[in-house]
């Protein structure tokens, strides 16, 4: 038996890439000869093979293929049709194109194309359909995937590596100046709700008159320049330029420092298929206030304060309450650590993954 991981682009820091690499590593440990097939890869130590060679390697009746679906890729569907073994698809969700309407035609088109493939993927007759969350899985099922062959498997992540990494002490020192630090982690993209976040942060600054800092940690995408500019303008409109710290392309040490030095992790994202930063915040002990959209309530569970509304004053008041209510903060942190340990630690996910593979092992 041989196993193939099929993914369009493999990068080590990307959540989808981390999930694919972890699966490949587990399959290696199970003694199954495993290769990762992709169009391109960067920053990855593991050797990869061109996608076109996948069928020759793992297209037989005893082989296993796991396709990581997060963007449109017609070639993958063609390759998967030619495989005769056990085929799994892991759906990481695709951002609805409407979010990019005002900011990037390329992204909008890419997301539209990706979403158009949803029905084709559902109809391809995979032996197993996996979703990072029930939210993702329901989209697949609504597109026609059979419910009896669908399972939830949260994505593998690099949280443990971050927990064990050395934090950037200089950054912690710089951030520990008495100001309340609001942290948002995620690439700067329109579905992440940065504009709502700026509003909530502004509300806090105006209502509570305490020194506060908003840390926007995430990759700034030059192709989404218009969106980044809109955030900057919103910040300037509220006169908060000096309150906001951008950290682009953060190292693991900087990421860990940001979590450790922040007083609240505030997530106002409007669309998430799972949201790994929530799990990072749980594991590193940063209390969470979040907008209960898409898969966020499912990932967050009872480990944070979640609101259906986007009223910025609710988020500002939530942060203020967390800063003053020690019992609430410690209770949420304890629940977060427990939730990470019981539901999202890589050991738990590994066991679940192996259970799903048992029929073919």
């Amino acid at each position, binding site marked *: 038996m041989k196993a193939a991981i099929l993914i369009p*682009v493999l*990068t080590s820091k990307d959540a989808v890439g981390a999930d694919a690499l972890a699966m490949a590593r587990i399959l290696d440990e199970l003694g199954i000869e495993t290769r990762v097939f992709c*169009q*391109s*890869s*960067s*920053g990855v130590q593991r050797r990869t093979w061109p996608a076109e060679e996948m069928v020759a390697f793992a297209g037989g009746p005893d082989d296993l293929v796991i396709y990581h679906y997060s963007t449109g890729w017609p070639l993958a569907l063609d390759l998967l049709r030619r495989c005769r073994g056990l085929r799994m698809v892991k759906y990481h969700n695709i951002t609805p194109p409407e979010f990019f309407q005002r900011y990037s035609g390329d992204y909008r088109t890419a997301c539209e194309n990706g979403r158009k493939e949803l029905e084709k993927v559902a109809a391809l007759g995979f032996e197993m359909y996996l979703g990072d969350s029930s939210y993702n899985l329901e989209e697949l099922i609504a597109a026609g995937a059979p419910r009896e062959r669908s399972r939830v498997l949260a994505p593998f992540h690099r949280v443990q590596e971050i927990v064990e990494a050395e934090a950037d002490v200089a*950054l912690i020192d*710089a*951030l520990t*100046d*008495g*100001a309340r630090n609001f942290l948002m982690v995620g690439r700067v993209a329109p579905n992440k709700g940065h504009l709502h976040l700026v509003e909530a942060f*502004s*509300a806090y*600054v*105006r*209502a*509570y*008159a*305490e*020194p*506060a*800092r908003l840390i926007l940690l995430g*990759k700034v995408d*030059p*192709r989404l*320049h218009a969106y980044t500019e809109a955030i900057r303008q919103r910040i300037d409109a*509220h*006169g*908060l330029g*000096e*309150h906001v*710290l*951008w*950290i*682009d*392309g*953060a*190292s693991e040490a*900087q990421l860990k420092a940001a979590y450790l030095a922040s007083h609240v992790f505030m997530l106002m994202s409007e669309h998430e298929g799972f949201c790994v930063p929530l799990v990072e915040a749980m594991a590193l002990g940063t209390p969470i206030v979040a907008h209960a959209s898409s898969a966020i309530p499912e990932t967050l569970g*009872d480990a944070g*304060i979640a609101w259906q509304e986007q*009223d910025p*004053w*609710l988020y*500002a*008041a*939530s942060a*203020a*309450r967390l800063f003053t*209510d020690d019992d*609430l903060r410690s*209770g949420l942190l304890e*629940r977060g650590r427990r939730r990470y340990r019981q539901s999202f630690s890589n050991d738990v996910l590994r066991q679940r993954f192996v259970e799903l593979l048992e029929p073919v092992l």
Partner: protein
Amino acid sequence: MKKPDADNSLRRIKEEIRAEAQVARSRAAHNPRAAAAPRAIGEIAPARTAVSIDELARFQFIEFIEHAYSVLLGRSPDSAGLTQQIRLLESGRSKIEILGNLRFSGEGRAVGVRVPWLLPRYLLAKAMHIPLIGYAIEWLVCLGGLPRVLRHQRAADAYHAARDHVLREDLAALGAQMQPLREEIARLDRERSEVVAQMQALGERFVPLHAEIGKAFQEVRELRHLVLSMNHWLASLRQNLAALEAAESEHLRKADAVHADVAARLLEFDPQRPARLRHWAAEFAAGLPPAAEVLDIGGGLDWLQSMSSRGLVVTAINQNTEIGQHIRDAGLTVAVAEPSVVLARIADHSLDAVTILDLASILRGLPAVILLDMMRRIVRPTGQVLFGMGAESATIADRLEGRARAQVDGELIERALQASGFVRIRRLAVDDASYCLIADQPN
């Protein structure tokens, strides 16, 4: 029930937060001044802000392009971009030009990776593409670069001379290493020749052996032919024997049919027979338990039916196939066989009684002593035996075949029964002076 308590607590806190949000909103409306800004933190540097041209240019071809994209744009090349840059490299454009194209594109400027000295070199490379002037610039650059080229040339000469010396030394060392290898190859060649010679000698020794094996094969073939012939002959013999047995069997069947017919006709001339058999059957059955198991040897169908009508369970032995068939047709159990063979196979004390109406014909094949001993063995305690002294079908058959009628002395049989251990020996007589003997097996 800790979980519901925690849920209730969180729900309550959220209600309080909701109320607090309203208060905060109105408080902010009356306090337009924002809080003081936190301490300024210098620019948080991205993971990488500057990279040298040498660092970027040390990779080759596709690897060079992918690395340049990764560093200067922070992403993998898209397929169109990759194709375009590969085409430029293939057409002889310099790496400086590729790097400049990426770094000074809109996307590259937005990312802003610093590459010292890239801009002037990029501009110079671009200037070389201007018609006529570009050609002149390229000439000038080449002319200006001549002293450096010469310097490089001299350095290369020195390097190659040094390398040539090293290569010669390496070649000599390789030659020295080759010598033992050549000797080893020669030795292997010699050994191979010896092995070939040994194989040829072995081949020659195999020639007579081959002849012997050929002869043996020939003999085996002849033997096989003989065995097959014998098999054929034996098969023919078996067929002939089977035909003879079938004819014999047919003859016996016909003889049995004649004997049965003659016996039936003769017995019809005995008007006392039915009454005699009924009387004997009644007396005999009276001394046995209900449904007693009785074995009859050589009796006719009328005798068997007389016993059956008295509630006895009767099994018959008869040597005549025709009579046997009549008995079977009447629904009774019968074995057509030699009596002595059947008697020898019956288990000890397994029968309640045995009847033999035609004792004379049985004694012709089975001595009285052995017969009585068998009776003692197979009849249960308190069981009975009945011996008839009259003529039956077997005796009639004997006479038809020219054998003398066997004479049975009743007195003698009584004494023999007594001597064998039977008790209560009694004689059942009828008006025509026919009689039978009944004796009991002691308890």
